[in-house]
């Protein structure tokens, strides 16, 4: 039925099966849109956030999603600027993941603010000293860049490229894609950083406050590093997942191993930097603000275990696995380590968002907890469903893994030679 839209020589499931796969996600999306609609129409009283917990699930997951989406800019940077050609195999998939992550995060942010219709105020009256201004500008610019990077992938669709102007525009745009990759890298550097700076500048929250370079607190650099470290890991994870779900080989093991190695290297640097930062913060920054660091970890459940988990369990451990060539060559190890790394960054974003707000600053204040309402969870599920839908459609109709056909042929060659060997 939709055969004409599917790239030549790749196998996709039947339209019926595809619809069957899409249906539950579409239902989830509908439910999520209803939740988000409630928040927009009735206001943020639909959430469980309050004056003490002004940020909640949404901000935590937005930060996580944007860190995981960093694979798009980082792979682009490695491929087009540093010329690591092996990564051509995953760049399209990385762009789609980036697009999904960023557009989803921005959509949730628009539900999260009290007056979404005033979003343009930040552009019109920017406070250039605010990290959030930097985030807003860079995120919106980068989403534009991602959309433009996604355009050639769409135009390369088998049916669309029969239109000569689409074909030619795709070709010409792809020639200039390195410019977009460069701009994307610049923008990502700053917004990943300023998302970390968001917390690092909070002088009034010594748990988050950090010293740094010029206007940028140390969290600025830590967030860049950690995002660049898990971006490739998340691509390994998603590619593996897509391979499992579609039951076909899409990318050469070497490409994934390269991603794993880069991820491991950056993760190791990040763990080192994070450790130094934590020590400086415990011994100098926090006490200077009048807050002995030990007190943050006496509010249960946030014990020092969370620090250990963040740095060692989900930082050092996956970094070591990814750096060991023998372990990384085994798919199970590679994917598990990538998963741990992603989880570690999610935990870091959780700590920065939730623990920062939960620990009291005033002595007569209480430790507060918060659990998201179903509308908050629903809104976020909408983003997950939207991501799965966009990715599924892209995987079906666009050529996300250019090596897929070649790998299929290679597999056929192996099979036929095996058969010959078996015959004699």
């Amino acid at each position, binding site marked *: 039925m939709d055969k004409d839209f599917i790239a030549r020589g790749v196998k996709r499931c039947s339209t019926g099966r595809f619809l069957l796969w899409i249906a539950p996600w579409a239902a989830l999306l509908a439910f999520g849109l209803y939740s988000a609609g409630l928040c927009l129409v009735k206001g943020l009283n639909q959430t469980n956030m309050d004056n003490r917990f002004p940020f909640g699930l949404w901000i935590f997951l937005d930060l996580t999603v944007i860190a995981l989406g960093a694979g798009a800019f980082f792979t682009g940077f490695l491929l087009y600027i540093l010329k690591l050609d092996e990564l051509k195999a995953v760049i399209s998939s990385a762009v789609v993941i980036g697009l999904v992550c960023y557009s989803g995060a921005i959509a949730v942010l628009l539900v999260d603010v009290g007056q979404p219709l005033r979003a343009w105020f930040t552009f019109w009256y920017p406070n250039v000293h605010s990290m959030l201004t930097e985030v807003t500008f860079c995120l919106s610019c980068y989403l534009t860049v991602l959309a433009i990077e996604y355009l050639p992938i769409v135009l390369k669709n088998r049916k669309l490229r029969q239109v000569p102007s689409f*074909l030619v*525009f795709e070709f010409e745009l792809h020639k200039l894609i390195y410019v977009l990759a460069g701009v994307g890298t610049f923008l990502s550097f700053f917004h990943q950083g300023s998302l970390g700076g968001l917390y690092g500048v909070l002088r009034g929250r010594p748990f988050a406050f950090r010293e740094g370079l010029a206007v940028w607190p140390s969290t600025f650099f830590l967030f860049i590093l950690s995002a660049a470290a898990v971006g490739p890991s998340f691509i390994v994870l998603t590619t593996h997942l897509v391979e499992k779900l579609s039951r076909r080989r899409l990318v050469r093991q070497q490409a994934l191993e390269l991603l794993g190695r880069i991820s491991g290297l950056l993760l190791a640097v990040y763990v080192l930097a994070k450790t130094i930062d934590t020590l400086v913060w415990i011994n100098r920054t926090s006490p200077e603000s009048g807050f002995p660091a030990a007190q943050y970890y006496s509010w249960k459940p946030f014990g020092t275990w969370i620090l250990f988990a963040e740095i060692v369990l989900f930082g050092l451990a996956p970094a070591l696995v990814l750096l060991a060539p023998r372990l990384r060559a085994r798919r199970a190890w590679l994917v598990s380590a990538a998963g741990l790394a992603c989880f570690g960054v999610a935990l870091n974003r959780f700590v920065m968002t939730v623990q920062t707000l939960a620990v009291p600053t005033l002595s007569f204040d209480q430790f507060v907890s918060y659990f998201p309402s179903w509308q908050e969870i629903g809104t976020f599920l909408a983003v997950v469903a939207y991501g799965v839908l966009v990715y599924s459609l892209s995987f079906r109709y666009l050529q996300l893994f250019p090596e897929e056909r070649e790998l299929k042929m290679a597999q056929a*060659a192996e099979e036929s030679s095996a058969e010959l060997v078996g015959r004699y």
Partner: protein
Amino acid sequence: MLPWNYGFHWNAGTLIFLGAFYTVLVVVATTVIRAAFHSRRELAAHHEESIRWHSDFHDLPAADRVCRHVLTGEFKHRECPHAFDCRECETHAKLIARHPLAPPAEPEEDILGMSFPLDRFYHRGHTWVHPEADGAVTIGLDDLGRRLLGNPDAVRFPALGAHIQANGTAFQVTKRDVQIDVLAPVDGAVVATGSAAGDWCLRVKPDASGEPAFRHLLRGSEIRPWLQREMERLQLALTAEGAAPTLADGGVPVADIAAGYPKADWDAVCGEMFLRP
């Protein structure tokens, strides 16, 4: 954002921040506009066929992009840098100047059970070019191409007088619901059309004549090694697309291969063999 807005201060922070922002906007906009502008120019110059081929060639598996001199064993590995257009290739010019193509060892026309007359040139997209006495050329599907598309369901030839470009589309063949755009072997104007089942398909008045105009086409002793490779590719494609690998024993392909492999994904097989990824 703008100097007359509330809260705007002429200070270093504002200038750096907004400077970076506007630079990014300008760079992104310029990139898109430049691409659009170039596209318009290319479209006006009717380069879309050549662009389509370059884009397709780029998407071919590395194993399919090898230089013809790898087929003959002169190189071990070499990827064609000119999208199979040897007319612009200096390496090719040097090589044929140094070692003119030896005539085939035995003057056979029957290669692997298929008929490949030596009086004509062959294009890697499975067409042949036969120079005629009047300066025109006839173009047809080669024997392997005919066996792949044998008894086509429909053929669409370009209009008389239409201009075809080498590696652009020569004509369209439909077989088993699969539409294949057969690559044109030469540049020229169509002067007559034949039939896909007949001896020739198109009669073309080429834009240029003489040896350099046909330099990109295979000939003589190159045909056999090329064809051997093509048979390997066909076998691989058939295996990959769900047909049993019966050709492995060196059997001769049947006249209508499509009919012989009803289960194979014919779209993929033909795309592979006619260099249309």
